[in-house]
C-alpha cells in the first residue's frame, strides 16, 4: 500500500499542532523558539508532499526559501535572546513582558 497524500497532510497537521501547543505552554524562550522551528518544518512537509503528488517542482523551491527564512530567523532570534538575557539575566518570557529595558 502506497502512502496517500492525506497521510502526509495529517502528519503535518499533527506536528504543527504540537508546535503551537509548545509555543503556548512553554516558558523558556529558547524552547518556544524551537517550537516555532517545528511549525516551520510541518509546513515544509506539506510543500514537499504536494510537490511530489502534483509532480511540480515549485513546492520544493518554496521549501528552499522557507529554510532560508528559518536560518535568518535563527540568527536574528538568537541575537535577540542573547540581548534579552544580557539585560534581564533570565530566559523566562514572563520576565520580558514589558518592552522597556
Amino acid at each position, binding site marked *: 500500500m*502506497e*502512502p*496517500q*497524500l*492525506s*497521510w*502526509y*497532510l*495529517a*502528519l503535518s*497537521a*499533527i*506536528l504543527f*499542532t*504540537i*508546535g*503551537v*501547543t*509548545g509555543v*503556548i*505552554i512553554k*516558558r*523558556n524562550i*529558547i524552547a518556544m*523558539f*524551537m*517550537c516555532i*522551528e*517545528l511549525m516551520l*518544518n510541518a509546513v*515544509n512537509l506539506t510543500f*514537499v*508532499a504536494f*510537490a*511530489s*503528488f502534483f*509532480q*511540480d*517542482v*515549485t513546492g*520544493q*523551491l518554496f*521549501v*528552499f*526559501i522557507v*529554510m*532560508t527564512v*528559518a*536560518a*535568518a530567523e*535563527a*540568527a*536574528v532570534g*538568537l*541575537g535577540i535572546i*542573547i*540581548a534579552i*538575557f544580557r539585560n534581564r539575566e533570565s*530566559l523566562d518570557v*514572563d520576565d520580558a513582558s514589558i518592552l522597556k529595558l
Partner: protein
Amino acid sequence: MLALLFILFAGLAIGCALAVVAQRNPLYSAISLVGVFISLACLYVTLAAPFIAAVQVIVYAGAIMVLVVFVIMLLNVEQEDRGRARLKFLVPTAVALAAILIAEVAFILVSVQEFRVNPTGASSDIGLTHSIGSQLFTRYLLPFEITSILLLMAIVGAMTLARRAKGEQR
C-alpha cells in the same frame, strides 16, 4: 514498503516532537528536535525529494541546531522552575487548540481526495538538484535574489543585536 517506512518515520517524528514540548531541559528539547528533523528528511526521501532531504539535514539539523545548542551552552540555561504559573488560562487554551487541530486532522484523513498525477512516480526528475537549480535561476530568480538580501539583513541584524555598546562593561 513505502507505507511501512512512512509509519516508522512519522511515528519517530511525532514522538520526538512530543519530547520537544515535554522536556524541561532546553538541551534535551534541542536533541529531540534534531530527531524530528532527521525523520522528516527521511520522509522527504520517500517523497522523491533527495535535494531537499540533504538540505534539511545540512541546514536544519546541522547549522540551525548547532546555533541553538551553542546559545543554550553559552547562556548556561538552568532547568525551568516550576514555581510560578503563567497565565492560568493558557494550558486549557492549548488543550482546546490541540483538540481543534486534531479534529482537522481527522477531517483531512476522511475527506482529502486521493490522487497522484503521475502514478508511476519513478520516471520523474522533480526534486533532483538539476531541476531545482534550473527553475531557481530562471523562473524564480527574483525570490532567490530577495532571499540573498534577507540573509544579508539577518547577518547585519544579528551582529548589531549581539554587539555590546561602546564602553559597556560587564
